[in-house]
């Protein structure tokens, strides 16, 4: 048996995969959050960042495919493990079992499934920018000028997108679930990969708690600030009007708000 086979065919091997792919996704989440928090700066900041990512297609697609592989492996291992686990107890107890198990640990698969649905929505919403799912209009029509070039206006897209109440709610619910998933998953990952002993366990727990709370706060503060019109409301006022008009007749190129644009 080669090593791939040995990992895939064993229960512990699958847990290593869950842990490793989960860890990779958490690292991505931290980086992604750092990127997104730039929405609190001037519009040029996040637009410039988005433009930078787009200008490195190799890097961008490498990361995208890598992430997709991680999500895919994470989900496939989760499902095969869940099958193994339910087969291991054909007859359930009449009384409440799972004494001493935390709520999060009992519902990792349902929480993960909703997170997966959110990932699909999120990609359709902002990455593919499908007008059908955002409740506003065609995001691809939002452009701005940066260093004399016409580039997608990611800042306006985020603000207009998350000002929609139900969209904002979807994002917040997903963050809540992700927080619970990681509340259990992050520390459990260290266990699965064998990094735990009586000295390190309290430290790992603390790290897991701090990280999952930081991710929850970081990711939730963006939709909340946008929904409360704290961020970018003046900037998108004109764009909003233009976006509505744009869906009817061909777009009169988006004018940037005077005074807020970089030279």
């Amino acid at each position, binding site marked *: 048996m080669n*090593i791939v086979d040995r990992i895939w065919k*064993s229960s512990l091997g*699958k847990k290593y995969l869950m842990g490793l792919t989960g860890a990779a996704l958490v690292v991505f989440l931290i980086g992604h959050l750092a990127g997104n928090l730039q929405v609190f700066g001037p519009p040029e900041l996040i637009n410039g960042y988005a433009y930078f990512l787009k200008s490195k297609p190799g890097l961008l697609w490498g990361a995208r495919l890598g992430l997709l592989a991680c999500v895919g492996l994470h989900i496939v291992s989760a499902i095969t493990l869940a099958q193994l*686990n339910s087969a291991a107890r054909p007859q359930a107890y009449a009384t409440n*079992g799972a004494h001493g198990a935390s709520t999060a640990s009992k519902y990792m698969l349902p929480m993960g499934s909703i997170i997966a649905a959110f990932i699909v929505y999120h990609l359709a919403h902002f990455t593919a920018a499908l007008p059908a799912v955002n409740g506003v209009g065609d995001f691809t029509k939002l452009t701005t000028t940066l260093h004399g070039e016409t580039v997608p206006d990611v800042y306006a897209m985020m603000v207009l997108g998350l000002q929609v109440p139900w969209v904002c709610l979807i994002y917040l619910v997903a963050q809540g679930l992700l927080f619970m998933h990681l509340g259990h998953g992050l520390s*459990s990952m260290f*266990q699965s990969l064998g990094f735990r002993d*009586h000295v390190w366990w309290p430290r790992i727990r603390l790290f897991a708690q701090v990280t999952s709370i930081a991710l929850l706060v970081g990711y939730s503060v963006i939709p909340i600030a946008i929904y409360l019109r704290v961020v970018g409301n003046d900037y998108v006022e004109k764009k909003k009007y233009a976006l509505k008009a744009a869906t009817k007749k061909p777009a009169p190129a988006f004018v940037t708000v005077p005074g807020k644009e970089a030279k």
Partner: protein
Amino acid sequence: MKVTLKVWRQKNRSTPGAFKTHETPELNVNMSFLEMLDVVNEQLANRGEEPIAFDHDCREGICGTCSLVIDGKPHGPHKGITTCQTYMRTFNDGDEIVIEPFRAKAFPLIKDLVVDRKAFDRIQHAGGYITVRTGAAPDANSVPVPKQTADFAMDAAQCIGCGACVAACKNASAMLFVAAKISHLGLMPQGQPERYRRAKGMVDQMDKEGFGACTVTGSCEAVCPKEISLDFIARMNRDYGVALLKGDAKAVKSGGAG
């Protein structure tokens, strides 16, 4: 005191089972849970009914034979105590107590509350041993063992192999048992030669028996009568990971001296 028992009764594996209610006669509060069952069984036998089958042996919390899921918790309401060490004074007069067998595919039911836990023996056979030379016992201190290592190994060696970890786990996983067995030998200098082969062999046998995987819920640790720590599962995961990377030992072509 008197209690009402709701007990799982099942004649054998091929006959479907069901809960049956049994009223106990007057009990002494200082009876153990198993003595209470003895009294109920005596009453049943006197009436010409089939007594409740349940597992027990030492009745002093050291052999790991007693089992039972009492009101949803393996080994009853206490922490760090076996069923045989649980006393009726823990319950109140008139309580209804639900008693179920340990439930897992790898622990097939034999009768009523008795399940077959030989899967654990087969896991032990797959690596739960060390190689020692026969002959006179070696001098006690010929192999130095650091105190801390000895203590950890003793913590793991506390496992009495009762299977409560499997019974409690939502995945019916045997990780805590297997981890305890792998660790108590793997920690000691005497256990080093077979360390990785042991981890590989025992985990693979565990998978073959049809136990579930670990979701780190902590149920096993919470019900373990010997309070074995989840830390040992991490240790097992480490050893098994190393074993996976090493792969199976290649057969030596020319053969050794032995």
